[in-house]
């Protein structure tokens, strides 16, 4: 049994404290049943404590990876007997993000839900535990366990508003597609276990490195990735996301869009760099296959986003667009690409969370979520309007919001790998998404231009969307407006942090060094890594990035104004609306029938597998 320092003890507690919180509020339900504020306070405090512990851990990992062996079973002779947490800056950072967003969501819920049992709080805290465990674990079956805990809590939270039809259908679609994905992931884990007799990621990586990759390794890789890509809402595994986001309670949407989807992509990165990277080889083919999915996802997400009138769905498709961009960043397999993806994820999470919370305020005050109906209705929500508009600009890559850095770095890394058109994809899709969100900002909160044309089917769906709260308040409670404002401010702060680029890149280099990961986990030896070498010396922020970001934001604004004033523009083809042609395909693909979604998953898996099989024989 290894001796443990207080610092070490923090690692398991990051998962155990929220689990105990969930068990505690349920166990004391007679006490908490009538004392809502006490319950809220306990939940907020628990989430904030976890965030604090994780920040301490993240700072502590600057010197190298922290490995923690549960029950004290340190590996002997390179064989792991127990389960480990292997913490580096990137996964600790992601866990911090999850804890911060849960805290913000719980603060927002303070005045948002009028009657909630202890169930909501228990589910949220268990969701947090699942996310943190998923981030930190170094064992692939343990990864599956936390993936499932996260999933089960998320399905239940999606169906929280049981009085309506939408949440039930959304939860069913979400649960069935993600369960299929999870079971395929488990099949992949069983396959790789059958080859290596190991569940520790480092040990598996060591066992399959040095052999030519054969069918088993390729199939295991593809199957494990499937569940993660489903969670990450990569086309064609993405259909559940819009349905779940459209119906889940707003504070829950914050977590879905802000971290849960990104955790799927983190899983892809972790599984690739800790297990398969060296063993698989064929970097060019893997980049090609994954970035093809990423580009498809980015384009589909952006186009569908632009056409939406249902605000939550619009934001959901914007998340799909960004998930595609993050996947491109990961798929480049370079430190700079991963750095870009990591910074992009953080910036996106903060801004998107703020946008969802603002939509929650709109729903709370105005009782609707339909862009057409809401046109000009939000003028009284002054602060909310400002926050929403700022967040919209941030989403469109406006400096100094952190997102432009991520976009710029992914683009730069694409250049170095001979894929300059990645920048084009990022800019065009970001303009479309930014325009859609800016259009909402201008139309709903400032009444600019004409209301966008009604989409009859969406109108019907949105009309069922009743307020998630009991009575509309005369003014927006402080506990609802402060979280989005703070989150937007944080997005700026992150964008202005000095040494952000080099620091994150150092983490990325560490995460991508499979040899060093193996040595640290299995033998406890630490490898000194070079400080990050950015493509450019001055902390990685180039004039090009700034100009590109500002240009993207300007492009979004122009496109938003064009679509708001479309009917007044002197155009040759009257009666034509941008994006009308998309309604048919959207309806056809996003059919709401889970049978279709699973069919698409099998098609996607067959294509992905086929591509990998052709590349790596």
């Amino acid at each position: 049994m290894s001796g443990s320092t207080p610092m070490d003890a923090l690692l398991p507690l990051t998962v155990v404290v929220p689990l105990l919180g969930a068990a505690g509020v349920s166990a004391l339900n007679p006490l908490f049943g009538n004392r809502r504020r006490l319950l809220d306070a306990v939940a907020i405090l628990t989430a904030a404590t976890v965030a604090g512990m994780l920040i301490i851990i993240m700072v502590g990992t600057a010197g190298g990876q922290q490995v923690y062996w549960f029950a004290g079973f340190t590996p002997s002779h390179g064989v792991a007997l127990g389960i480990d947490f292997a913490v580096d800056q990137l996964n600790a950072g992601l866990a911090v993000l999850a804890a911060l967003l849960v805290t913000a969501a719980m603060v927002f819920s303070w005045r948002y839900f009028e009657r909630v049992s202890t169930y909501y709080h228990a589910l949220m805290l268990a969701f947090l535990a699942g996310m943190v465990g998923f981030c930190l674990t170094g064992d692939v079956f343990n990864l599956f366990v936390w993936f499932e805990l996260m999933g089960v809590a998320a399905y239940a939270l999606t169906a929280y508003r049981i009085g309506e039809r939408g949440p039930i259908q959304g939860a069913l679609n979400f649960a069935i597609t993600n369960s299929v994905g999870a079971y395929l992931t488990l099949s992949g884990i069983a396959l790789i276990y059958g080859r290596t007799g190991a569940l520790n990621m480092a040990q598996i990586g060591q066992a399959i490195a040095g052999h030519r990759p054969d069918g088993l390794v390729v199939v295991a890789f593809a199957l494990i990735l499937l569940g993660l890509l489903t969670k990450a809402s990569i086309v064609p595994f993405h259909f559940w996301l819009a349905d779940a986001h459209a119906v889940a309670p707003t504070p829950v949407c914050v977590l879905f869009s802000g971290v849960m989807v990104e955790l799927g992509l983190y899983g892809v990165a972790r599984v690739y760099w800790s297990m398969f990277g060296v063993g698989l080889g064929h970097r060019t083919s893997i980049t090609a296959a994954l970035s093809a999915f990423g580009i498809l996802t980015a384009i589909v997400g952006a186009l569908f986003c632009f056409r939406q009138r249902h605000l939550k769905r619009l934001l959901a498709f914007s998340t799909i667009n960004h998930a595609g961009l993050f996947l491109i960043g990961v798929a480049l397999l370079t430190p700079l690409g991963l750095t870009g993806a990591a910074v992009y994820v953080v910036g996106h999470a903060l801004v998107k969370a703020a946008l969802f919370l603002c939509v929650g305020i709109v729903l709370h005050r105005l009782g609707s979520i339909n862009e057409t109906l809401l046109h000009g209705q939000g003028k009284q929500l002054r602060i909310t309007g400002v926050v929403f508009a700022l967040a919209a600009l941030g989403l469109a890559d406006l400096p100094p919001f952190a997102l432009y850095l991520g976009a710029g770095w992914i683009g730069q890394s694409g250049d170095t790998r001979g894929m300059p058109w990645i920048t084009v994809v990022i800019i065009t899709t970001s303009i479309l998404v930014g325009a859609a969100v800016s259009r909402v900002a201008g139309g709903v909160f400032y009444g600019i231009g004409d209301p966008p044309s009604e989409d009859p089917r969406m109108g019907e769906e949105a009309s069922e969307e009743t307020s998630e709260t009991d009575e509309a308040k005369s003014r927006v409670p402080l506990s609802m407006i402060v979280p989005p404002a703070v989150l937007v401010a944080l997005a700026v702060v992150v964008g202005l942090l000095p040494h952000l680029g080099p620091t994150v890149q150092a983490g990325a280099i560490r995460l991508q060094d499979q040899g060093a990961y193996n040595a640290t986990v299995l033998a406890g030896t630490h490898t000194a890594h070079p400080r990050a070498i950015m493509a450019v010396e001055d902390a990685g922020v180039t004039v090009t990035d700034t100009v590109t970001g500002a240009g993207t934001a300007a492009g979004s604004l122009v496109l938003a104004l064009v679509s708001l004033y479309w009917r007044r523009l002197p155009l040759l083809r009257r009666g034509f609306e941008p994006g009308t042609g998309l309604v048919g395909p959207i309806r056809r693909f996003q059919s709401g029938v889970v049978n279709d979604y699973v069919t698409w998953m099998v098609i996607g898996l067959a294509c992905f597998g086929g591509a990998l099989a052709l590349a790596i024989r």
Partner: protein
Amino acid sequence: MKPRQRRWVFLAAAGGFLAFYLWGLIGLPGFGHYPGPYGDIVNAIAVAQTHATGVVSAVNFEYRGFDTLGEEFILFIAATGVATVLRHLRDEHDIRVVDEARDRQVPATSDAIRMVTLAFTGPTLVVGWYLASHAQTSPSGGFQGGVVLATAFTLIYLAGQFIAFKRLSPIHFIDSVEAVAAGSFAVVGVAALGLGAAYLANVLPLGSSPGAVNSSGTIALISFFVGVEVSAAFVLIIGELLEQTLVIREGGR
């Protein structure tokens, strides 16, 4: 997609998928040729190290105890989720439980069935208890024992005693029991931390000889908590579903 269309699209894709999956499966070492090392090492050292002769339990509650912690909370959260999804809304009225039992559409349970099922309840409880408390020695453990215990409670219902079932399993109380049991599992781990050992380390005395009922330290303790948690979770889930069959009139849509 239309159902017919979807079927053909699926069959084409599934053909590709099946070929791909089989390509991976034939890479396995062949049935009956487990390559190790994980399982072989555990088999070799577990009995001496943990004093549990049931190595699966040793893996479940000690080597990979952290997995089991997550697993217990999956079940706990699923039960909480079921309670959330099946909670009564304001516009739903259920006729009193007492009326219900009389109103049930099944033919009245015959006395013979009632006798038999009630007679089975006792032995089922005993078996469940045995399984939950012998994780360390024989093929059993908290999970199996917990499920059997939950089955015993369900037998009471099958005997037509819904009221008794209700009385034995008021939702909030069962919810509390479940949460306490799941939390206790986590607390056992924290206790190890407090003693300066790693989380979930086996800090209790391992007992005199492998195979004894009081052997194996925390393995037996955790197994017991898991048993309570699992049986409470299933009683809760089945109780909620049973209650649904009694909700007569729904408001709304």
